[in-house]
């Protein structure tokens, strides 16, 4: 089986652009990715569009029609906040199946405020499934199980902002102190306002092709997609993982979707957690950055907050986590955020990350988590 590689990436800054049409935001990212791979839209044989919040019917296809009408198959994908990772898996599968050689995946969204309809209608009537609550409950359990504190979660936000301050694509490019995070209003105990990501606007695009096509197009630094996995709940679902689930069984061991996806991804790549040099994880809020590091097997359960204190996850540390600043700094346009991670890891592996460049990573990892037990994990290597 021929390797599948990333030929080019492009991003539109994540932020708030009320005056901009989603098409303008998306097209900027798409054209940048084409330029980055030195391809034209004529070279694309298959395309995927991710959007979660934007409602306009057919928008994903409408946007690509403005880039070029070449008759290719185009599908729209929604896997909640895991959309980007889920599309990368589909693109890889399309190429390994032999049905095409060059695929464009892009995500775009304009998002503000909380989702109004995440739970079942009766749960929403009671205000039970507003997303901060579901994530905060996991954070509380993490504190109770392992002895982490609100200060540890604040430290995650401080680290994120230290990185985000160096990222021109980020919504927030300011540094924060632990005191500022702890003094920001409590949203859902134990998480404060500055622990949370902010819904915003943005787009990201990635061009994926076969290794053979990469040679034909003279791609100078192809990054191999060594694994791409999309995972949904496997009964019994992880008890308190954010979802509409009303109850679950506690008699048998439940695995989080990220754990399940990571296990498959390591096997597919023939690599282990010890081989990973840089990682972007879903940081809907600070606590889940730690939870997801552990679920990926990058350290033992309950250890991430201690390693954070030691600086292991800093840009200069042994295992830099979210060198982009994560969605805590970039904000989260859910259709685009997963591909935003892929852009960052590609830049890191090519040595193009500027002031936030980590130490010559050879293997990178991306993880996204979406509402209702959805995870996507990918492993990229030079």
């Amino acid at each position: 089986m021929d390797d599948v590689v990333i030929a080019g990436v492009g991003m539109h800054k994540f932020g708030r652009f009320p005056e901009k049409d989603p098409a303008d935001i998306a097209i900027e990212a798409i054209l940048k990715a084409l330029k980055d791979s030195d391809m034209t839209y004529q070279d694309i044989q298959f395309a995927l569009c991710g959007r979660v919040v934007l409602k306009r019917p057919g928008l994903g296809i409408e946007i690509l029609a403005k880039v070029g009408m070449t008759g290719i198959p185009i599908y729209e994908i929604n896997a909640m906040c895991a959309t980007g990772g889920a599309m990368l898996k589909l693109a890889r599968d399309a190429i390994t199946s032999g049905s095409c050689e060059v695929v464009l995946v892009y995500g775009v969204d304009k998002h503000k405020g909380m989702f109004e309809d995440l739970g079942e209608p009766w749960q929403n009537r009671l205000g039970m499934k507003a997303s901060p609550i579901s994530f905060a409950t996991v954070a509380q359990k993490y504190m109770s199980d392992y002895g982490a504190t609100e200060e540890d979660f604040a430290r995650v936000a401080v680290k994120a902002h230290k990185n985000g301050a160096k990222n021109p694509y980020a919504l927030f490019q300011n540094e924060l102190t632990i005191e500022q995070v702890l003094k920001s209003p409590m949203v859902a105990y134990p998480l404060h306002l500055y622990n949370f990501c902010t819904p915003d606007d943005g787009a990201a695009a990635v061009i994926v092709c076969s290794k053979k096509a990469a040679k034909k197009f003279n791609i100078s630094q192809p990054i191999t997609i060594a694994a791409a996995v999309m995972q949904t709940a496997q009964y019994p679902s992880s008890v308190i993982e954010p979802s509409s689930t009303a109850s679950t069984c506690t008699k048998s061991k439940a695995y989080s979707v990220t754990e399940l996806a990571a296990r498959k991804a390591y096997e597919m790549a023939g690599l282990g957690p010890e081989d990973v040099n840089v990682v972007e994880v879903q940081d809907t809020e600070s606590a889940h950055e730690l939870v997801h590091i552990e679920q990926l097997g990058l350290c033992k359960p309950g250890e991430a907050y201690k390693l954070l204190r030691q600086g292991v996850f800093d840009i200069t540390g042994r295992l830099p986590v979210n060198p982009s600043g994560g969605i805590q700094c970039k904000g989260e346009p859910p259709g685009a955020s997963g591909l935003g991670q892929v852009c960052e890891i590609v830049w890191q592996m090519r040595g193009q990350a500027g002031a936030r460049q980590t130490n010559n990573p050879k293997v990178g990892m991306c993880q996204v988590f979406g509402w209702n037990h959805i995870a996507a994990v990918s492993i990229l290597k030079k």
Partner: protein
Amino acid sequence: MSTNGKKQVPLLDGMMKLPAFPGDTGHLIGCKCRKCGELFFIRREICENCQGQELEEIALSKKGKLYAFSVMFYPAPPPYKPPEPFVPYGLGWIELPEGIVLFSLITENDPKKLIVGMEMELLFDKLEEDKDGNDVMVYKFQPGRSG
């Protein structure tokens, strides 16, 4: 049980059996798969575990232990209708002796007074009146009075 001659109705069909006579306490409705024995909260047609379609209704325990919790300090988005003025509200996962964990509103909204593992007890509370003047009832858990 009716108050002021009104009827009490559950927020969702298949969720709870409200007290029917003086001294009756009511209970939450669970179901058990006849094929694999898995338990679920709220009546359902299909077993998540084995996809069996024969589930029998059972009464769930009225006491459990707090498994994890949060307190929401801002109103959730609609259709949630916050009280005026808004009061932070508690939520938690309650572990029942049967071996299931279910999500519930909890009456305590001070995180300092909540501890994982503490005893919790079921109660029913009025949410609102429906268009026929009936009391729409919801389930909640409160810290156990026995401590």
